[in-house]
């Protein structure tokens, strides 16, 4: 296969390795070292996509991050990804790419009819068209926009690739390895600083790879290779190519996107595809260079119109000709080098220079080379639909508003240069307010906001001499601040062509009665006429113009369009650009993959899994687990083909009739010690704690300062100055922070220490009428009688030699105990309980049975203590002391909290005694009332009462006290149910609480 536009003797690609790839169903060949863009251009392919709004044919404009058009759907190793920039992705074996935003094909795209309807797609089109009628939004407008506006298609498959995160600290981060980046990294490294040098392209050197310069009698490329090879030997330097620093955040935190494996055809299973670096740098040098500005003219989006710098890069780096009959259209000297490069490769260019007859070093050189130059000339309109075929050019009048003459010349590409725009995105993200430099008609960084310094072309300095000098100087200064070393550098001697002034001219006028589109923002299809409309309709702020026209938005972030847009606004408004200002630059500078952001935190690695010491036993015994925060808890132990409901009924029933054990290790446990511990608890809980004797537990409720319940649990006095607090599983971490807050900030005078012991103790609850019998077998030497170990009693003992804590507390409402042993003995304890419990028909029970037991007893838990209830709402007002002060007490006196008809906890049973009531159902009087149907309360917890063998729920209802006996409807629009319910007491079983005391 012949690569029609490949040059033979130039470029940095590896011609020994041919790579075959697929584009829009056709096979092509390129070389290792190509980008997808350079390989396509080598095959003469310019047309790669259709534009966003008008579906106009689009080709390559740039050769790197500057590319706004060539976003392709790319498949490698079976993984498909949208919006890949063809100018940045390297060619690998098996790569397959397709154009986006076109149907049925990029060559024939039905959406292109939009181009002929373009008077219907002006600025503000989305705002104006899709406003009404409202009913059209869901079925007509949204699907239309989604289909038409999408760039690529996200894969529905799970991403099988591996992504990683890395955290790094360094003295100096240098972003960009052009001349200023290399010089500063080198100087800093010589001073012993820990340096990271980041380059987004595969090859280091930046413009040194393409500019015709010499440094210390070496070519730019050779010099950069020499510096890089020396840096590679230094242990204090990290060199990262294929790495884009895309975000500058607070406190000198930079985020970098590294393409680790994208370019490898055979990478190992553990080589990540991409890596995200969080880099905290003491100092940062922004040497991000500059991007060439286009000049705006008619149909300037036709494939074949490229930036002149890109045309040069395609020749010098990739050995690819973007055309054989080029027009160089420029307002400055730098594009002449592109003309020279064409000439060197036996292609005859013609230069159109908007400046009047001009004489500079480089113009003279062009004349000497016999290159045709037309001054005061520009391209008016590119002709050709899918590829440039000719151009209508014109000689500008003195005021540059019309033409003295026009003519049409043949060409197959137009290389355009509107001078240079410093890449100031990172500086702006750092908080640096930019300033307008009139010399270069662009914004450059002003005073540093963070520890950042911008140098080289990014700072508006466009001569190599200046750039290299400032690189060495800045690198040396910043690093010696940190390392205290001051290595003397010999600044190399530089030869380069001196550039003369550019023409302040960026938009070609149109001849009378001609109206081709002149695009400012290619990616968003924003034309000069759109900006004119926005201004005509009264938008003045540049931020408003941006949003109304979409200028400078999306993945492109205005890289090529920003300044031309501003220039346009300022021309129309008769303002100067700095008065218009610029829009905000936002991270990421270039698009990054979602996979990289997520990193390794997927699937099981999404968050840590906490397992109790008995977890393996649960697994072996058919436990079905449920997530409780990070914990895995057995929800039920499945026997045969049991359903969740059947299993939980069996387990709960067995607790009520015999005895069951439940793994309660996950409950939060806090060890509290110190002479003021009793006083502290007395302030934290709503009830009285000063007189709790050693060896006794007490149930307590703690509030937030606003009076809402924060958490509940039992706390046991282990010894005089030592307490053991339990919290709910969910609130464990918050309660500890809460206690620390009061001890460290509010009452530092209290001599108390708190520490979490959740993971130090394994816990098992033994509940049911036979629990005492079982306990006596577990602790044969211990008196476990009701007198020796009464309700809320506490004893320390040993379980077959293992120290154990025994609490007589109950969550199930049955006679119950909780045994704690050191975590390592958790499994031992559990297995002993299973073994000894056999004769009492002991069965393990999970969280579902646990909930059933507590709900039918009317015990509150998380669903009732949801941060919106005060003690009396959940009938815990008996625990609120009137005598002493405590956290949140003052709030309880609030008017709304003391209203007679305040919400209150109640019980619910369905009148049919059959239908389960979905949790979250709303309670209403009339199920058929028109919306909004007045809500009287909500269902907080539901279960199947094993005691009464029918559904039972807890609910929080307005004026709950007076609602007992009434009938309401529990409606759940989510489950599409409406159930008539009867309101009863929340204590459905054993309302006197006899069992726990038996």
């Amino acid at each position, binding site marked *: 296969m012949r690569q029609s536009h490949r040059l033979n003797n130039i470029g940095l690609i590896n011609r020994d390795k041919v790579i075959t790839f697929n584009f829009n169903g056709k096979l092509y060949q390129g070389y290792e070292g190509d980008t997808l863009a350079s390989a396509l251009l080598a095959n003469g392919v310019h047309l790669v996509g259709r534009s966003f709004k008008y579906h106009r044919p689009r080709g390559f404009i740039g050769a790197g991050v500057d590319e706004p058009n060539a976003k392709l759907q790319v498949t490698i190793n079976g993984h498909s990804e949208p919006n890949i920039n063809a100018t940045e992705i390297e060619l690998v074996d098996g790569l397959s790419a397709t154009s986006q935003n076109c149907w049925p094909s990029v060559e024939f795209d039905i959406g292109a009819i939009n181009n002929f309807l373009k008077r219907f797609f002006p600025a503000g089109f989305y705002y104006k068209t899709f406003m009404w009628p409202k009913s059209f939004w869901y079925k007509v407008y949204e699907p239309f926009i989604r289909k038409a506006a999408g760039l690529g298609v996200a894969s529905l498959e799970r991403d099988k690739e591996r992504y990683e995160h890395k955290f790094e600290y360094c003295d100096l981060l240098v972003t960009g390895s052009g001349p200023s980046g290399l010089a500063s990294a080198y100087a800093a490294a010589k001073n012993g600083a820990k340096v990271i040098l980041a380059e987004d392209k595969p090859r280091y050197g930046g413009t040194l790879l393409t500019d015709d310069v010499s440094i210390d009698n070496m070519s730019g490329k050779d010099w950069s290779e020499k510096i890089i090879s020396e840096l590679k030997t230094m242990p204090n330097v990290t060199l990262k190519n294929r790495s884009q620093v895309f975000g500058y955040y607070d*406190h000198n935190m930079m985020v970098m996107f590294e393409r680790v494996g994208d370019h490898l055809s055979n990478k190992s299973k553990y080589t990540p595809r991409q890596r995200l670096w969080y880099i905290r740098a003491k100092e940062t040098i922004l040497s991000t260079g500059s991007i060439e500005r286009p000049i705006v003219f008619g149909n300037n989006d036709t494939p074949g119109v490229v930036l002149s710098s890109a045309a040069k890069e395609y020749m010098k780096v990739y050995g690819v000709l973007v055309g054989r009959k080029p027009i160089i259209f420029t307002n400055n000297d730098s594009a002449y080098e592109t003309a020279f490069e064409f000439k060197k490769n036996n292609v005859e260019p013609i230069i159109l220079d908007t400046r009047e007859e001009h004489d500079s070093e480089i113009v003279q050189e062009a004349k000497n080379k016999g290159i045709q130059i037309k001054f005061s000339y520009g391209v008016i309109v590119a002709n050709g639909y899918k590829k440039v075929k000719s151009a209508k050019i014109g000689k500008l009048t003195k005021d540059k508003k019309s033409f003295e003459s026009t003519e049409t010349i043949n060409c197959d590409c137009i290389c355009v240069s509107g001078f240079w725009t410093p890449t100031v995105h990172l500086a702006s993200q750092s908080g640096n307010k930019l300033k307008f430099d009139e010399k270069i008609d662009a914004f450059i960084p002003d005073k540093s906001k963070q520890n950042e310094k911008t140098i080289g072309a990014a700072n508006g300095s466009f001569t190599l001499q200046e750039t290299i000098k400032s690189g060495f100087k800045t690198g040396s200064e910043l690093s010696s601040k940190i390392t205290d070393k001051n290595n003397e550098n010999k600044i190399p001697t530089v030869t380069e062509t001196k550039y003369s002034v550019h023409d302040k001219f960026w938009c070609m006028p149109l001849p009378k009665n001609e109206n081709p589109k002149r695009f400012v923002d290619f990616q968003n299809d924003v034309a000069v006429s759109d900006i004119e409309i926005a201004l005509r309709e009264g938008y003045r702020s540049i931020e408003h113009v941006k949003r109304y026209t979409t200028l400078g938005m999306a993945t492109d972030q205005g890289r090529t369009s920003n300044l031309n847009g501003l220039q346009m606004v300022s021309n129309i408004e008769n303002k100067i650009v700095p008065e218009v200002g610029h829009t905000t630059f936002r991270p990421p500078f270039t698009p990054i993959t979602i996979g990289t952001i997520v990193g390794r935190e997927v699937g099981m690695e999404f968050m840590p899994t906490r397992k109790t010491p008995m977890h393996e036993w649960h697994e072996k015994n058919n436990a079905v687990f449920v997530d409780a925060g990070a914990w895995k808890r057995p929800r039920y132990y499945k026997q045969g083909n049991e359903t969740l409901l059947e299993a939980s009924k069996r387990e709960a029933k067995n607790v009520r009739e015999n005895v069951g054990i439940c793994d309660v290790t996950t409950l939060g446990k806090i060890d509290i010690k110190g002479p003021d511990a009793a006083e502290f608890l007395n302030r934290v809980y709503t009830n009285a704690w000063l007189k709790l004797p050693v060896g006794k537990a007490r149930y307590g409720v703690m509030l937030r*300062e606003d009076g809402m319940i924060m958490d509940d649990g039992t706390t046991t006095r282990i010894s005089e100055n030592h307490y053991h607090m339990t919290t709910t599983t969910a609130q464990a971490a918050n309660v500890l922070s809460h206690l620390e*807050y009061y001890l460290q*900030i509010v*009452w*530092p005078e209290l001599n108390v220490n708190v520490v979490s012991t959740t993971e130090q103790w394994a816990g098992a609850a033994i509940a049911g009428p036979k629990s005492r019998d079982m306990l006596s077998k577990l602790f044969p030497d211990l008196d476990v009688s009701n007198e020796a170990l009464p309700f809320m009693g506490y004893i320390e003992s040993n379980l077959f030699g293992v120290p154990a804590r025994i609490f007589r507390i109950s969550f199930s409402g049955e006679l119950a105990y909780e045994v704690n042993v050191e975590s390592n003995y958790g499994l031992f304890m559990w297995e002993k309980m299973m073994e000894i419990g056999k004769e009492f028909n002991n069965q393990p029970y999970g969280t579902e049975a646990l909930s059933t037991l507590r709900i039918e007893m009317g015990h509150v838990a998380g669903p009732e203590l949801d941060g919106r209830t005060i003690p009396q709402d959940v009938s815990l007002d008996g625990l609120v002391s009137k005598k002493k*002060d405590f956290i949140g007490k*003052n*709030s309880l*006196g609030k008017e709304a909290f003391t209203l007679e008809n305040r919400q209150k906890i109640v019980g619910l049973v369905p009148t049919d005694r059959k239908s389960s009531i979905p949790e979250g159902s709303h309670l209403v009087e009339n199920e058929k009332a028109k919306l909004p149907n007045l809500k009287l309360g909500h269902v907080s917890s539901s279960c199947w009462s094993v005691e009464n063998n029918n559904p039972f729920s807890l609910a929080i209802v307005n004026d709950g006290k007076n609602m007992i006996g009434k009938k309401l409807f529990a409606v759940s629009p989510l489950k599409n149910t409406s159930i008539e319910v009867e309101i009863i007491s929340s204590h459905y079983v054993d309302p006197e609480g006899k069992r726990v005391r038996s």
Partner: protein
Amino acid sequence: MLHINCPFCGLRAQKEFAYGGDATVKRPEINKEVSKEEWDNFVYMRKSPRGKHIELWHHISGCRQWFKVQRDTATHEIFKTAKMSEEIV
């Protein structure tokens, strides 16, 4: 992401800390009569200044100490951090 100087542990990433609100709010003394207005001010009323502000941070994934941070709420610049027992002036 902020870089916060814990007075006990040194410079650490923001990930390790939890924000704790305005450090200049004083809780009314316990066991003392407090007016409704004073109490409501304490519970609900917070200033939201633009600029220098002293706030609480909790080193939850570190030493578990609460401490004070003087930070610019607009620029995120941190001027000073201090133990609870120390004053920031």
